[in-house]
């Protein structure tokens, strides 16, 4: 394949006239309303390949408000997943590069410093570009993103089997997420927990009694009470599953189980000092993240703060060397591990897994796809993120399992209140879960509307075609309309509106100009020349 002949002579750099980026005003962060959790503006992501520059994203705008679920629909290759990966800066670089745009997460620009990371130089007039990257700056940006990924933005991927590590047990992987994002409070609880509460023996008696009668609600209530008395919530989960075992008969056996659970609360001196050091390291780590977040918010580097924190972290790491002796390490790690295990069990319980303790100690290959997707959701929610990006979460699952996962997501939505960016190609899933929908086509956002409005009154010809092409299980007589042609090649996309070669209403202007995004109805925006609404200035 000779690629050089057909190179378009377009610049790979975003043309300056294309949609003046609203992001350039300094007060940009302040103008967006406080409810907006994530605000993506003018995002452009290109891939530099041997065949040419793939303009995968070409000015994507989206906004997600608190507690809202935004559905992102489009066909394969339209840039849905690239959007998700660009938001978390997980685009493989090279070949990909985020060219420009702003990703404002509660006012912090995750793409801050982008323009200094790479320089582009055209090689002759070939259309090929030489990119000189500053790896120091890219590394710095990646370090900053560590403060965001997993803790502020969590992602659920399409293939749960590929997203989990096959050689670690499930609890270990959920525990890792907890260690990274929730360690200081966990250790605080462990250090403060005690079995000295005067009401404790009486509560233990009641628990044994409830277990004797196999009274599940009462076991649950009393073990929760013990968890509060000792100050260690995960103990409640542990006790519940310990005494619930149907093979456990007789007061003595149950009593022994309860005492075994309680025995993990008091810590030895060595264990305490280990935990305290772990906590200090974790705390420094979080200080560092806070500094990074402030940097991204204010848009200027904080040299003093970072150097300070780095030095502190290094000192503590060196100080903990003494615990790396194998025997001591095992001894001191044990209480933390069992705490993480039972927290993981609690999380798995919250995603309605029937036997969480068993699932927590399995390896990923022992679980089915639906179960793994629940594990992924539990892991994503472990850090209580601002935004959950769900990238085709149910595509690999069967319909009955998909229904279970959608049911779970709906329940979590109302309980946790996390904003969700739901990426899917299935309009049925969108209709069931999303509050607002954005339709993407060939790297551009073409229509955004509340879900009911979009299905009742689709404006863009592509959205109309998409809705007409789905077979409906509740409407057999519907004639399936198909959109002629296929998705354009993004190396040399059609000029003007990228949909015009397939559009039944194409006009001469569509071939020449990029249609502006206009507001047609309250919160219904569309990018099409058929409509003459007020131009959306974000």
């Amino acid at each position, binding site marked *: 394949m000779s690629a050089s002949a057909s190179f378009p002579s377009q610049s790979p750099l975003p043309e300056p006239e294309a949609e003046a980026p609203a992001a350039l005003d300094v007060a940009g962060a302040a103008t967006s309303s406080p409810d907006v959790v994530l605000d993506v503006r003018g995002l452009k992501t290109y891939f530099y390949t041997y065949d040419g520059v793939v303009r995968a994203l070409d000015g994507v705008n989206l906004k997600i408000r608190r507690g809202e679920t935004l559905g992102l629909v489009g066909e394969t290759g339209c840039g849905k997943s690239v959007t998700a990966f660009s938001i978390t800066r997980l685009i493989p670089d090279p070949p990909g590069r985020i060219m420009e745009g702003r990703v404002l997460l509660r006012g912090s620009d995750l793409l801050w410093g982008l323009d200094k990371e790479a320089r582009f130089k055209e090689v002759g007039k070939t259309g090929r570009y030489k990119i000189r990257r500053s790896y120091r700056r890219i590394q710095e940006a990646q370090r900053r993103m560590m403060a965001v990924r997993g803790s502020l933005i969590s992602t659920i991927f399409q293939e749960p089997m590929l997203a989990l590590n096959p050689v670690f047990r499930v609890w270990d992987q959920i525990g890792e997420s907890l260690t990274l994002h929730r360690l200081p409070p966990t250790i605080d609880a462990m250090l403060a927990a005690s079995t000295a509460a005067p009401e404790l023996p009486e509560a233990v008696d009641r628990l044994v009694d409830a277990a004797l009668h196999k009274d599940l609600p009462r076991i649950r209530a009393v073990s929760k009470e013990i968890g509060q008395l000792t100050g260690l919530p995960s103990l409640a989960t542990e006790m519940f599953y310990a005494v619930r075992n149907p093979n456990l008969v007789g007061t003595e056996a149950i009593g022994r189980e309860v005492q075994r659970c309680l025995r993990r609360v008091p810590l030895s001196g060595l264990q305490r000092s280990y935990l305290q050091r772990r906590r200090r390291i974790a705390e420094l780590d979080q200080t560092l993240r806070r500094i990074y977040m402030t940097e991204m918010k204010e848009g200027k580097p904080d040299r003093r703060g970072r150097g300070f924190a780095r030095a502190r972290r290094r000192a503590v790491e060196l100080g903990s060397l003494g615990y790396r002796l194998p025997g001591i390490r095992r001894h001191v790690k044990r209480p933390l591990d069992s705490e993480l295990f039972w927290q993981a069990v609690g999380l798995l319980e919250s995603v309605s897994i029937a036997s969480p303790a068993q699932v927590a100690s399995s390896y990923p290959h022992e679980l089915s796809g639906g179960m793994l997707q629940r594990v992924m959701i539990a892991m994503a929610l472990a850090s209580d993120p601002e935004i959950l990006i769900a990238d085709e979460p149910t595509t690999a699952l069967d319909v009955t399992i998909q229904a279970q996962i959608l049911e779970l997501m709906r329940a979590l939505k109302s309980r946790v209140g996390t904003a969700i960016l739901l990426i899917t190609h299935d309009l*049925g899933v969108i209709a069931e879960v999303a509050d607002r929908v954005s339709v993407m086509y060939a790297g551009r956002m073409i229509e955004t509307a509340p879900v009911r409005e979009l299905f009742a009154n689709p404006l863009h010809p592509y959205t109309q075609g998409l809705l007409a092409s789905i077979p*409906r299980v509740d409407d057999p007589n519907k004639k399936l309309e198909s959109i*002629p042609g296929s*998705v354009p090649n993004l190396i040399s996309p059609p000029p003007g509106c990228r949909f015009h070669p397939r559009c039944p209403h194409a006009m001469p202007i569509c071939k020449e100009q990029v249609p502006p995004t206009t507001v047609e109805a309250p919160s219904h925006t569309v990018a099409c020349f058929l409509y003459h609404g007020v131009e959306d200035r974000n």
Partner: protein
Amino acid sequence: MATNGGDEPPILLAVRNLRKYFPVRGGLLSTHIGDVHAVDGISFDVRAGRTVGLVGESGCGKTTTGRVVLRLIEPSSGHVFYRPSAEQFDRLNQLYADLDVAARSGGNGASAPAGVLRELDQIATKSSIFRKRRSQMRTLRGKMQIVFQDPFSSLSPRLTIREIVREPLEIHKAGTRAERNQRVQDLMTSVGLNPEHLWRFPHEFSGGQRQRIGIARALALRPDFVVLDEPTSALDVSVQAQILNILKRLQQEENLAYLFISHHLSVVRAMAHDVVVMYLGQVVERAPTEELFTRPLHPYTQALLASIPIPDPTVKRERIVLSGEVPSPVAPPSGCRFHTRCPAVMPVCRRVEPRLQPSPQHPGHFVSCHLYHTPDEPADAPLGSGALAVPPAAS
């Protein structure tokens, strides 16, 4: 069972008691330790020019059924009768009914009347595809074709499109060279591809275009039966609609019969005349499409229908979310295989396996569920165990 009426098109395929077990080997000497009951005694008919939809979750044996029906995999037992005559077909139904009665009264197949078995054997020798010799099978393959699920792995990357589509014609030595080339040209236009694409290689095409090539290849020999194994599940909706429309048009033009395998019920509703719902290797319900979708009887079918997301946020409907997952086909549950997840499970479901029987209201609607039929106790069941006291609950 409905006989071959005058207005109905003739029977093209009659699948009877088809079974396919895959052995599971393990242990010290990798001995035979069990079987995957992939397909466990299924029966259905395909009429000329009609579409039978085969629906179920992954792992229920849909794809295995499609392959066994084409004899791409040898079955463990059972028959697929190809173009049985009307008399043969009626006789077959009679014989299988006799066998069924004998099996239920006698407990095992050994006591089945020898005469019935002998006659069945005679019909099978005449028209079962599993009794065909290699050479006979080869001619038959021209009449029975398949379109595979994955358009990316089912086309050879080293052949041009022309070679791919022409290959079946060459194997079967159909026509002269010029005629073959003409046929390839015609096929390309009929699946909506440009004849100039003939000289390209598969990697230059998108998924939808490749699936069109797969369809052209399957239709090259003018078959009368095509297995469509999830032909659109790898495609986008807008392209899916294109492919479905092509398939429908070709069916009318060439009087093709399809076995449309899919997990996507809405696609099946748009395509099929009859629907067979499978669960863990068995047929749980079989009915004409409209009947099945308007009055699903089996709890599994009801749950399956309720769990499809409807692309319309204004539609509010009852939600049945099944708990748990599909059990392992190595050790399927006793009694009704669906009882572990069934919302309407009764004690009898755990012990007695339901049979596929016509529903009392609609004779063409077959369902295998104790909710609709009084369970027949196996003869060796201990009497007085209380099983007979369970009334068949009306839904």
